[in-house]
């Protein structure tokens, strides 16, 4: 489970360095991200440009991280690949998250 943390403009950018955000990795991703969001104390942009595939387990993990954000802090998403974008659209979670085309 590789995540890269970098400073963005008023937010922390977390880049997922994995090609698949699936059932094999979802729990680990969720646990690692929860540690990060609590420690950062500012909005998070989750950069998913490396993620070629995500299933409902990965989606559930992203939602869980969203719910774990400190009060008043947003989790936003960036650079969804077509397979990831499909899951957000089909489940209408694209209406819940702010999604950026670029970081």
């Amino acid at each position, binding site marked *: 489970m590789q995540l890269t943390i970098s400073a963005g403009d008023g937010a922390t950018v977390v880049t997922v360095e994995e090609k698949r955000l*699936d*059932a094999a990795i979802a729990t680990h991703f969720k646990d690692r991200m929860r540690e990060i969001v609590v420690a950062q104390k500012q909005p998070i942009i989750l950069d998913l440009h490396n993620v070629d595939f995500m299933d409902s387990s990965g989606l559930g993990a992203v939602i869980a991280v969203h719910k774990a954000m400190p009060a008043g802090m947003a989790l936003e998403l960036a650079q969804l690949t077509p*397979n990831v974008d499909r*899951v957000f659209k089909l489940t209408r979670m694209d209406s819940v998250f702010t999604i950026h085309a670029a970081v």
Partner: protein
Amino acid sequence: MGDMTHIGAKMRDPTDDLGCGQPVFVTSFMATPLAVRATLTALLKRFHDEVSDDVLGRLQLVLAEVLNNVAEHGASEDGSYGPQIHLCVTRHPRGLACAITDDGVSLPANCLSPRSLPQLGTLTEELPEGGFGWFLIQDLTHALCYYREESHNFLAFCVPFTPGAATDSADCPRRKCPDVATDWPDLAAVRRC
């Protein structure tokens, strides 16, 4: 059921066609999330040159939901036995026909009841973190069919090349439960083991 591993766990030669002139992918594996991932990766390679990225994306999503569901819920209650999955994917004129058998516990009937999305709620803390899987499966497939026979689950469906286009198509041939012996000779072979 140990014999199942001798049938699958490998890809067929690309020229192999089950007698209908179309490419096929057949494999057998233990139901674990990592084995599901490896299987889907091999499946992508097999069909990469055959169908579009969009179709492959939908196929991969549906199969991830189905196969990981077996991995998560198919084991015996005491956890002593993890199910074995047999997967067959065949290209048909209007879609990819998929058949999955496993020897895990029976699929609850409500999985196949018409599904809508779980309620999203109005507050962040009310957002559902699960319950999407069977909605996605039903939304992305046609001719979804399930039955239980002795100790095996049998699930079949079609992922259409054009979304929404194959509901009345005889070319996407799994509108009713197929005859295993004639429609799925590989699965019939598994049953005989």
